């Protein structure tokens, strides 16, 4: 029956789309804001739900969406590969799934995806470190996110692309929590007073780490990821060495727009949309795109 509805809805060009968000961090809120804004723009009826970092809840949310008869569900999953069950569920009900942030090995059963190429983010930060170090032998620390693929890919992209002269001397998870990241950074600078660079998996944590380094009167240079207003500001005034901008609002807007086009079978849109990355350094900070729609 859902299949019929899909085609019927497609007929008058008015879709009902569900958005299942993964959590309530700043990123997630921006993402949702962008999707909501775009939905209004395109006249799409939008239902939203939040899984608060719980894979079971995510599946429940998708079930709820299916039972209200949406035409597609956009999922910001709580766990990169945990969407498998979501997809199976949705497939059985003939409701296509569109992903944000992540890609699957097998994208056949997915309507499409709007992603941030995390490995490239790591790589760009690594290249920044390489350029800044200018061939000197340097010690590098990593404050990762929470254990799981997202953080692994991001950190992997960074560590794999560091020059041979850079040695990773510490790698600890900050659990995507500024408080934890601050604690980790405090201990890290204690254990490795000679640290030159630290890669922090997101800006919220980077600010926590910054507090720690400031307190330890250390001049460690921080490279990070997001490109939020605060982060760009920090790069501008030299607090951070650099960050990689990948605006949540772009990811979100792209997601809704291409989901609709893919439902329309519009050939002009790629199945996978990549959020453009911009390396933000002191010189380029003025041109950094806005992270979050107001």
């Amino acid at each position, binding site marked *: 029956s859902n299949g019929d509805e899909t085609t019927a809805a497609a007929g008058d060009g008015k879709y009902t789309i569900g958005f299942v968000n993964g959590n309530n961090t700043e990123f997630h809120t921006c993402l949702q804001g962008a999707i909501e804004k775009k939905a209004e723009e395109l006249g799409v009826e939008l239902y939203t739900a939040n899984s608060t970092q*719980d*894979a*079971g809840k995510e599946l429940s949310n998708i*079930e709820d969406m299916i039972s209200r008869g949406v035409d597609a569900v956009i999922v910001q999953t709580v766990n990169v*590969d945990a969407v498998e*069950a979501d997809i*199976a569920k949705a497939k059985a009900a003939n409701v296509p799934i569109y992903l944000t942030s992540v890609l699957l090995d097998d994208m056949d059963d997915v309507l499409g995806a709007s992603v941030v190429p995390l490995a490239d983010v790591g790589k760009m930060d690594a290249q920044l470190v390489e350029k800044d170090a200018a061939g000197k032998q340097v010690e590098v620390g990593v404050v990762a996110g*929470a254990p*799981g*693929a997202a953080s692994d890919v991001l950190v992997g992209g960074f560590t794999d692309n560091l020059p041979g002269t850079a040695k990773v001397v510490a790698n600890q998870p900050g659990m995507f929590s500024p408080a934890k990241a601050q604690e980790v950074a405090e201990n890290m600078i204690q254990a490795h007073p000679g640290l030159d660079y630290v890669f922090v998996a997101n800006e919220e944590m980077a600010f926590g780490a910054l507090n720690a380094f400031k307190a330890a009167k250390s001049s460690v240079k921080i490279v990070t990821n997001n490109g939020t207003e605060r982060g760009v500001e920090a790069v501008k005034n030299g607090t951070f060495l650099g960050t990689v901008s990948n605006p949540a609002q772009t990811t979100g807007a792209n997601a809704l727009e291409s989901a609709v086009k893919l439902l329309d079978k519009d050939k002009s849109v790629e199945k996978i949309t990549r959020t453009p990355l911009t390396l933000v350094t002191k010189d380029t900070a003025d041109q950094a795109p806005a992270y979050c729609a107001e």
Partner: protein
Amino acid sequence: MSLKTTAPEAEGTTGREPSGRRERASGGLLATVYRIPHLGLTLVLLLVVLFTATQTDAFLTEGNLINVLRQVSITAVIAAALTLVMVAGGMDFSMGSSAYIIAAFAAQLIDSGTSVTVTILASIGLAMGIGLVNGLVVTYTKVAPFVVTLATATILDGFQLVVLDGKTVSSGDALAGLGAGYFLGLPNLTCTALVVLAVTALIMKYTTYGRDLFAIGGNEHVARLSGIGVNRNKLLLYAGAGALSGLAGVMLLSRLVSSSPSPGGGLMLQLGAVAAVVIGGTSLEGGRGTVVGTILGVILLGVVANALNLLQISSFYQPVSVGTVLVIAAVANQLQKSRHQTH
């Protein structure tokens, strides 16, 4: 032994036996209504259902109700086991984490080609072993079970990452029957939960073992002095709770199809179960509890989560709503109890 000497019963009749009559005499409708078990909780549940039904048509559809039932199944299994543990004056905070690590373990087994039957048996066996360790520590060191099992939960959370090596492992279609199948129109997960709940209820009401648990929770010293094998019963209890967590883990895997690192996921599952059991009227002090109350608690939490989604409450306000309903339900349950109860 019939020692009807100059038995006091002979004369004391006025006060001695008409108890039943006296009781029936007073009372009336109100008293009868107050005596309905779980009245407060039921009323809160009904109110939530009615409110949601009037606000959105999507709520009272068969599909949606089945969704709710499926969604609460895993929590229900853990809550059933927890009801037993808490009735015996214990606590197990590790069941959610145990379920998560078992899901990881089972996924690895299936991924490495083990048959479904062996996987399920091994999973439940391992979980039972984990529960047994909890039981041994709780019983023989006398550390508060809350502390022991909270520590176990932390440890298991770490081992889940080890088992998965930080990656996601899929169970493919192996458990699709359990996770996606139906029996008599109900999801298999729900059927499983119903069986567990029914068995738990029967154990609590109709077996000496169940009554032993009430006795242990009521006064452990007296239980021991009365010939109840308190230590053995406790070991059995925690091992059983472990086994049911294992079952919950398999159910979890069958539902999510894959297992991924989920720090904190187990604790959240556990807190949901604890909340359900407690608003269902099971005492944190032990010696009192019912499966029916637990079922109502589980359903209430499930319905509220579902209703909040259907009503499109902002995700900021969802926790606010859940917390509020939790307090109201607990208060409603308590009010009735203190009215009805004597001290």
